[in-house]
């Protein structure tokens, strides 16, 4: 028999899926009534998710925050709550509509992880600092996730891209197409030059019981090369076209970000279902994963770009960019203190009690520090240097990307935070 909290999780899952579908229809048709149905569906998901959390707490007899499934579930719960706050405070269905895919994606990721209740916490986890540390970090991450959504909205509402009549691969689209394409040769050249005697990668594809081997090095090359190519080509392009009015870059960054996120999600599904296997124990395994994510991101990019630029979808999203910018900054201002106190301070105090040292340079700790340094820079740039609008939105997306990397980092870097 399925545990009641899992049953409620799936109830919430289907409600959020329904909400996502209804909000998609709302965005396509612009009918408010459908949007409110979408919000209601999300509310119907939020309630069982909340009840499920407390049931799980009661069953396990400890605060249910001891594995990645529970962390992601609370993150999605926080995003759903933020959706409710946005709706209550601003009455903007369109913002809620774009928070719904984040909630759903978090639920999808959580659904792929082991959901068994951990009845017995290992000694180190038996501390009230677990509650403080993980809850605050999850709430802050959920807040940053909502900030990333509003930043995404800000970027894709670039007025020039909205009014552009050009095709999806013309004009400003060239650099990103090149960027994606150039990554492979650059990366491959790098690998061949620097790591000629690289140990054979054991990455495999298992399609229909026929394993395909020998793809690991290519994936590694692509995983290293694509981001390097992307950064390199962007810098070169900006240098060449420095006299041209800078525009469209934010839009491209947003679509590329979402494409990569989808690519990584697909790669995660393939890995989880054992269709794709990364080389265990190899330091290159993260690049193998990134390589596959980039490859899967390519079709996503073209599809998303076509979706956002075809017809009148972008124009129909009559969103106030200023408001998006304000909400994005507001979520970071809400999340930053929580993240600082929860992820860093509470974690450090707990580490001192359990392991003897406030800081051990564990990969997860370094990941949290990187996130914190990044958002510190973001806030200084925004509040003191006046970085608002496109710059701020791109930084907000990058920050959320780092949150995800820090969260899933222990799959690649190991360390003391050995969650399942």
């Amino acid at each position, binding site marked *: 028999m399925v545990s009641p909290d899992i049953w409620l999780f799936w109830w919430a899952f289907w409600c959020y899926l329904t909400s996502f579908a209804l909000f998609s229809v709302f965005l396509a048709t612009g009918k408010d009534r459908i949007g409110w149905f979408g919000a209601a569906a999300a509310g119907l998901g939020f309630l069982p998710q909340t009840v499920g959390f407390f049931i799980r707490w009661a069953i396990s007899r400890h605060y249910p925050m001891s594995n990645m499934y529970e962390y992601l579930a609370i993150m999605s719960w926080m995003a759903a709550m933020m959706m409710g706050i946005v709706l209550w405070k601003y009455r903007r269905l369109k913002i809620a509509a774009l928070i719904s895919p984040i909630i759903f994606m978090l639920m999808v990721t959580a659904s792929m992880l082991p959901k068994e209740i951990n009845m017995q916490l290992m000694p180190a986890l038996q501390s009230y600092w677990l509650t403080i540390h993980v809850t605050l970090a999850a709430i802050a991450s959920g807040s940053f996730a909502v900030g990333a959504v509003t930043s995404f909205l800000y970027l894709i509402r670039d007025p020039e891209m909205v009014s552009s009549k050009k095709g999806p691969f013309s004009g400003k689209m060239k650099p990103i197409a090149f960027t994606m394409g150039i990554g492979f040769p650059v990366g491959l050249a790098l690998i061949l030059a620097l790591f000629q005697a690289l140990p054979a990668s054991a990455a495999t594809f298992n399609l229909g019981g026929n394993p395909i081997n020998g793809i690991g090095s290519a994936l590694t090359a692509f995983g290293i090369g694509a981001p390097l190519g992307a950064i390199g080509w962007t810098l070169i392009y900006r240098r060449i076209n420095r006299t041209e009015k800078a525009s469209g870059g934010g839009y491209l960054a947003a679509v590329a970000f979402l494409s990569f996120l989808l690519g990584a999600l697909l790669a995660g599904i393939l890995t989880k279902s054992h269709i794709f296997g990364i080389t265990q*124990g190899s330091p290159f395994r993260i690049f193998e994963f990134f390589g596959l994510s980039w490859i899967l991101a390519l079709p996503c990019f073209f599809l998303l770009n076509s979706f956002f630029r075809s017809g009148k979808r972008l124009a129909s999203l009559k969103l106030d960019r200023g408001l998006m910018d304000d909400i994005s900054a507001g979520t970071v201002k809400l999340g930053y203190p929580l993240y600082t*106190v929860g992820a860093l301070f509470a974690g450090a105090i707990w580490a001192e*009690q359990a392991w003897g040292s406030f800081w051990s340079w564990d990969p997860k700790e370094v990941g949290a520090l990187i996130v914190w340094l990044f958002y510190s820079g973001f806030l200084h740039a925004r509040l003191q240097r006046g970085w608002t609008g496109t710059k701020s939105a791109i930084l907000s997306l990058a920050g959320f990307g780092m949150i995800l990397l820090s969260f899933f980092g222990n799959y690649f870097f190991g360390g003391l935070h050995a969650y399942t």
Partner: protein
Amino acid sequence: MNQNTQPPPRSLTARLWSTLASMKFAILLLVILAVISVFGLFVEEFLPDNPMASPWSEYVWEKLGADGMMALRNIGLTRPFQAPWYRFLVALLAVSILACVSQRLPGILRRLKQGPAKLDKTAILALPLHATISNTTRETLQSKWPKKFSRREEVKENGELWRGEFGHYAHLGPALTHIGMFLLAIGAMMASLGVNTFQMGGFPGDTIMAEDLPFELKIDSFRVEYYPLAPGQTVLVDDEFLGRTLKRIRDDIWLVETGPHGKKSDRIEVEASQLANQFDRNFDSGNIRDYIANVSVFEEGQAIRTAHIEVNHPLRHKGWRVYQSSYDPEHPRVAARFDTAYIKVSRAADSTALDTLYLTFDSPAMFADNFALTAGGFYPDYRRGQGEDYSLSAMMNNPAIRIGISRNDKELSSTVLFQKFAFHGSTSEQVPFIFDILDIEGATAAEELRTIFSFRRDWGGGVIWAGFIVMTIGLLLAFYLIHRRFWIWLEPESDGKMRAVIGGESTRGTHHFEREFQTIIARMKQ
């Protein structure tokens, strides 16, 4: 008169300090630290400090050679976060924060002292939130002034200015946040430079003494606690094979998974009495609930205090912290006894049973012609160590008794008898007998494990705590306290009445404040 309008040239120190205090420098440093931290994460993976850690480590060390790796280690590339250059960057950030705070704090304190800006009528009317009330009185306005706002009244040339504010301590937020960060950076550097740490352990009854330690630690007891049988545990089924409990089906029946984890695994129903969740620490460590040691602290031979040390609850004494670090499951000290062991004695030549002996620890059992059998030791879970017998645990996994055989008080031989195996000890001309354990009655065994404590003393712990507190307060003030200001410009009208020009401003939550402002105005108009 000629006046030099050029500002005096600033010294190099002043310019350097100004650069360190600049926002641009701080952002640049944060970005550099973030990038280097990302770089460090990957470097630790690709350039492992330990050549034996993994096949990749062996490969890298072989490719780059020990000299190459040592060269990389010397410049801090194998452990970048412990490298001097990384510490230098953290120190630079601390200095930058100090410069920033020292430059901005006087202004913040001045602003706190001075209160809201002294606006005139025109400036108040230029505020986004403003209103005018005519035909009012000073008393009315004073009585309706919102209580949560402080108030300062000043008489000006052509009117009166009242100004008040709420949440002005929000100004202190950024300064406190940065002071907290500075303390954290200093504390972290102190901790990394002045750490004194070592590990020592012992069995219950042992006393730990160390040269650096200003006290002695007597281990009164140590135990490992297990969870009761529950779903998800690794269990030994019927002393035969390993399984994993899935759920309790009925009161004493459990569903146990015996194959690989998954939907297609083999599942069997087993009685609770046939399941053991405490059997071998190589497999059952996931069922452990806690490691608990009770200790007494001695100073100059006097017991000062007793304490309880477990995971998450270290002992803190005289600047030292003592952690329950680990324990030694492989070499426990087992104290075991039995009441009576029934030993069958047979003749070695033809295996003819001669006698059944009732062996106890208290007295030898006599047999044959003045032969005596004595119990030398009892081992519930017998193992043969380097030259000595020991018991791996207190569980009756492999009960064995060491016996001594003598004749006329002269020791002839000594051997080990196993309850689960037939006698296979050596016989000799002097001892022409074989012995078998028929039964062991009243066997009891207590296991004592060697606990291992981690002793640690470092500097900067207090500074780090201060940093946590100051920075948390700073963050709360800076991000969650809203600073609101309220002004009234009063000027006389005819008939002794007054006219009030009222304005308000909020750093955040402007929609909410707008509603509050309108409410205040409505009340003042009544």
